[in-house]
């Protein structure tokens, strides 16, 4: 909220305040990635914050009448209106001369799919808000149905492992590129397993004015069919395999914020999660090939990608729905 942005590059996990604004006693599943992300985001944002949560797991486990795990003002109404609701709240604050962060904590369905229109409207109007997408790659609250964020090959209850069709058949929508196309002041991708990077990005988002978009990968124990204790490890492996990349963009200037030493084969990520257990070799190779294109577009030749050497000589594939293609 200040005119000059303080240097956040030296911040670490040690600088995270002790005081919680999203507190214990909430009803998340053990090992919930969303809870880890929200707890820490709220610590960094602090008390001058108004939270809007659309329909999602968080709306169920974060507050139920008459109680709430949020110590700050909390509001919920519907699924698809995070961008719009924050717009209204911000307009009221402005008129009343009040200062506060207006934060939307939406899931991937509420962002990639049903909430995309309101997200686009708010980004386009450059509303002064922090839009957080807590991405657990499916509609977990309703019982693990696929969304635009679900990766290729993943089992969900609407992409079941059938005899004819098995797993999601399209690739993950690149929501960050969609947001970037609006020319927003600040956007970043975050991983709960890269905490110093996480802290810096939330802190920067806190200081920038206008529309800010934070996209966090949040492993989901029941939805990803993973062990509760492995949520952090899975988040880390997502980055090492290129399933998740860490970068930020300020006023359209995009920069990597973390580079793995070298690319790990995607199978190392897949095997930690039951949702990929049904994938056959062809599907794993298809996913790996898609990842390799993504990897090169992202890291260029700066980071070695041994799993990609076999695909390197192939012509780039034309894949529907992959906005990175041909970029």
């Amino acid at each position, binding site marked *: 909220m200040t005119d000059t942005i303080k240097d956040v590059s030296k911040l670490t996990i040690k600088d995270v305040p002790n005081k919680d604004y999203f507190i214990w006693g909430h009803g998340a599943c053990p090992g919930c990635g969303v809870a880890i992300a929200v707890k820490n985001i709220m610590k960094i944002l602090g008390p001058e914050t108004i939270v809007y949560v659309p329909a999602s797991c968080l709306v169920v486990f974060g507050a139920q009448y008459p109680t709430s795990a949020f110590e700050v003002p909390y509001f919920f109404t519907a699924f698809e209106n995070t961008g719009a609701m924050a717009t209204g709240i911000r307009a009221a604050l402005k008129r009343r001369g009040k200062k506060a962060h207006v934060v939307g904590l939406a899931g991937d369905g509420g962002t990639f799919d049903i909430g995309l229109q309101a997200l686009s409207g708010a980004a386009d*109007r450059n509303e002064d808000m922090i839009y957080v997408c807590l991405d657990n790659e499916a509609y977990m609250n309703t019982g693990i149905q696929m969304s635009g964020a679900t990766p290729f090959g993943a089992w969900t209850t609407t992409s079941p492992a059938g005899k004819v069709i098995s797993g999601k058949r399209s690739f993950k929508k690149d929501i960050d590129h969609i947001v970037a196309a609006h020319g927003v002041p600040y956007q970043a991708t975050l991983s709960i397993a890269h905490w110093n990077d996480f802290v810096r990005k939330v802190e920067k988002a806190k200081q920038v004015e206008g529309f800010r978009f934070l996209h966090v990968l949040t492993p989901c124990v029941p939805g990803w069919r993973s062990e509760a204790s492995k949520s952090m490890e899975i988040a880390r492996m997502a980055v090492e395999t290129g399933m998740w990349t860490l970068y930020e963009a300020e006023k359209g200037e995009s920069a990597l914020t973390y580079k793995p030493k070298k690319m790990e084969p995607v199978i190392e990520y897949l095997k930690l999660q039951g949702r990929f257990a049904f994938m056959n070799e062809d599907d794993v190779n298809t996913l790996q090939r898609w990842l390799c294109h993504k990897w090169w577009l992202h890291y260029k030749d700066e980071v070695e990608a041994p799993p990609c050497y076999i695909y390197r000589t192939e012509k780039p594939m034309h894949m529907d729905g992959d906005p990175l293609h041909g970029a």
Partner: protein
Amino acid sequence: MVTRVISGDHAVAWGVRLARAEVIPAFPITPQTLIMELLSEFINDGELDADFIPGESEHSVMSIAVGASAGGVRTFTATSSQGLALMHEMLYAPPQIRLPVVLVNVNRSLGAAAGIWLEHNDSMPERESGWLQCYVEDNQEALDMTLQAFRIAEDHRVMLPVMICLDGFVLSHTVERVDVPDQAAVDGFLPKFVPVNVLDPDDPVVMNPICPPEYATEMRYQLDRTIDSTKSVIKEVGIDFAKRFGRSHGDLLDLYRMEDAEYALVAIGTAATTSRLVVDQLREGGKKVGLIRLRFMRPFPKEELREAVSGLKALGVFDRSVSFNSFGPIFTEVRGALAALHLPMTDHIGGLGGRDLTIEEMRDIFARIEENAIGKADRQVYWHGLRGQMQ
């Protein structure tokens, strides 16, 4: 006070300007657009200190309105037809959260086989949502009720959203003589908005979290009772308005020549205006007829209706929409309220999809009600102006 010759839409815009609305989200839709255009001019010319927010859909517009109202500021929006339908999901938020948003719906037909023209099938389904719903008859009432709507909605005994409905084109795009009050007089009538629950970090609330079964029944009943209790506030505000501005448009009901009436018509909006003329003509011919103009669909004036129809031999209801294979919605509600009276009643459906409602049709409606009064009605539901025989 300045006398202007303006459209219904512009009368609303003047009302919003005088009410000093603070946040105005909107999305264009005919025949509402004139309201937003004039409000945008007021704002851009510095005549109204408000934030106009161009939402990217009506769903977002109502979300923005709810957010702004929850943020504690006076909020206005307007829409029509498909726009109101797209808002439908969000319309259910402000009544239970008790946010006094004021919305003007310019009535227009909804759905397929629809155009941009007048029908009431857009706003009638929203009777269920918990909004107070008022139907106006002319442009003066459009302006006056816009002012009263804010005062009623924001009264701490009410704290409910208000939807004012005005007939598309017949009012929205028709210019009439309208007395526009002075700002100072309006400021005296309409106090500053004082919210009850506000999203404010200095005084945190948890607002509208999901609600387990232990609470919903009580919350619904409380809302139902609150809507019922708004009747006295509506009366009170109407009386104060009349005192300050010298005009009244009636109470929940606006009764016309009902003193010794033997049969009468219930009508809303501009249909009521045309029936006034027919009542006058029939009275000249010695017929004891009257008109009950229903000004509010919510709160629904059940007791007032029972009182108004005492002594009648028959009652007709004019509906500008129909619940297919049932009756017009107003007929259903009026008959429900009067069930114990066993009053002969007929439903008169007409003026659909912008079909002009002529004086001949209105005379025909009264003729049918008169037949019913002497036990000669051949059916319960009449479609007026229909080509071909009714089945």
